[in-house]
């Protein structure tokens, strides 16, 4: 029997706007996902380290400051360096379409922009994050 999905919701960088992160965290929790929220002002290294320690199946990043290209790329680089590229990375924020394509090319699985129904995101997590085998 598969176990519960574990997702780290992270706020990388200096952006203090956590409404989106908190709403998604609550919605995922209400959908039966185990959620670990990092809090504000995390470096990519701190987020990756949290994901490894928590044995997370996915990382959801929220950035509204325009620093997404740098910070998402750094998270992806660190996951590869830690041999943890199986952790699914998704995210959301104010991200122009051209940047979305570039980040998806780096392996970010999905990016959600303002106005996305929360049900779309919780469904996406359920359908795209592999369930861990119960231990």
């Amino acid at each position, binding site marked *: 029997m598969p176990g519960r999905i574990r997702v780290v919701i992270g706020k990388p960088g200096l*952006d203090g706007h956590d409404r989106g992160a908190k709403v998604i965290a609550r919605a995922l929790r209400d959908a039966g996902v185990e959620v670990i929220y990092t809090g504000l002002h995390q470096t990519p290294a701190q987020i990756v380290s949290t994901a490894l320690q928590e044995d997370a199946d996915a990382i959801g990043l929220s950035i509204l400051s325009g620093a997404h290209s740098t910070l998402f790329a750094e998270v992806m680089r660190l996951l590869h360096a830690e041999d943890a590229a199986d952790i699914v990375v998704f995210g959301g924020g104010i991200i122009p379409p051209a940047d979305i394509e570039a980040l998806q090319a780096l392996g970010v699985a999905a990016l959600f922009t303002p106005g996305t129904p929360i049900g779309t995101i919780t469904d996406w997590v359920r359908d795209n994050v592999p369930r861990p085998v119960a231990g």
Partner: protein
Amino acid sequence: MAYESESGLPVAPVYGPDMPAGWRAAEKLGEPGSYPFTRGVYPTMYTGKPWTMRQYAGFGDAAESNARYRELIANGTNGLSVAFDLPTQMGHDSDAELARGEVGKVGVAIDSLDDMRVLFDGIPLDRVSTSMTINSPAAVLLLLYQRVAAEQGTSGDQLTGTIQNDVLKEYIARGTYIFPPRQSLRLVADIFRYCRAEIPRWNTISISGYHMAEAGASPAQEIAFTLANGIEYVRTAIAAGMDVDEFAPRLSFFFVARTTILEEVAKFRAARRIWARVMKEEFGATNPRSTMLRFHTQTAGVQLTAQQPEINLVRVTLQGLAAVLGGTQSLHTNSFDEAIALPTAKSARLALRTQQVLAFESDVTSTVDPFAGSYVIEALTDELEAAITALMQRVADAGGAVSAIERGLQKAEIERNAYQIALRTDAGERTVVGVNRFVIDQEEPYEPLRVDPAGEARQVKRLAAVRAGRSESRVQLALSHLKRAAEGRENVLYPMRTALDERATVGEICNALRTVWGAYVPPDTL
């Protein structure tokens, strides 16, 4: 089922002339420009001259932002509003590890006096009033501004403008805090005292509900938590030995305007009435200016959509209208593309044009407080006043704003409301045009503004040049004086000013204070 307002108040389908027993216009409304200022803080309001059109802007390096300000002034804006990037707002230099990817993104990067000179080059600071959205490092940026003005030949007593300087709401909503709350309040009191002596016409704080609203606060929560913060600042200044009428006339506020016009107008009117009463009855203010709630408004960014972004022009018009009908002193109208990226030059101009249509084509400026006496507006104003006062009492019962922040009370309330809004939008109980109704199959592509990604490296290079061109020993000495002041009770702004003159950077000043005061770690939970 009756319509429920954003604050959860029932709105009746019809209102009539029956007012509650004891309702007297003279008491509840007063004359425009008179206590309790329900109808506005000035007797003539916009019939003499319209509100200040103040467009928040800034990105990239100081030279790029300077060009945007010159363009806004040429287009008829009459007050500047500076957006700083996140490293500046968090007191980190552009070369700090945490600054990576953030330099120049949501505002302009300012590391030292040299950047500030470029930012205001050719802008006459004796005639332009400047608002700076800066909180934890507000003292640093204000001192840099004063220094640049002095170099232009403008003295402190000629300067007009505002620093946001509202750290309490950072813990509640915006997240750009540095020091713990009580140390932050000491710095606020130092700023009040410094401005009283050196820059007497400056608005020393802009007590802000805007960011709480963006984080999900209802109108009643927005006003209640903001006024509760205001009360904490007033107590702090009085405890620091100042007389209420000495600093209260320089307090200003900052709220959101949503598309729900009726409730917003009532909200602004209720806020003015409550603040006037608190200042008069609770703090014994005798100068009428101490009891006036003067405020800036920004249209609700969170109501803008990335889908069919042109719809946002219509939303911003309604929001701006709500602010004007509510009696705002200054207004920022958002650009229609801000759910996608920073505004382009064209969208920024359109946002300003929206205000100009309201001010110069519509008739809403022809008479003061046009909604006064409307059955529904007066009823909603009273009901909001009651709801806000009850929430303020909850904060007071928790020991005041700071104690409530330390327990996470305001943040938890706001987050609960944000989640309810998201669920109701998802369920289709709230309409968002273009998002959950009236959608189109294929969104049109939109080419947003791009901040030059090479800007960060250029800014880091500029900073290195500043460090190379100064006396390191003099900087270190000045920073040690600043730390000593922070440990004791001396006003930290004077040694801070000396350090800035020696070319200490924004990050170095804030780091010096961090070593003495510590950094805030929030009680953050889900």
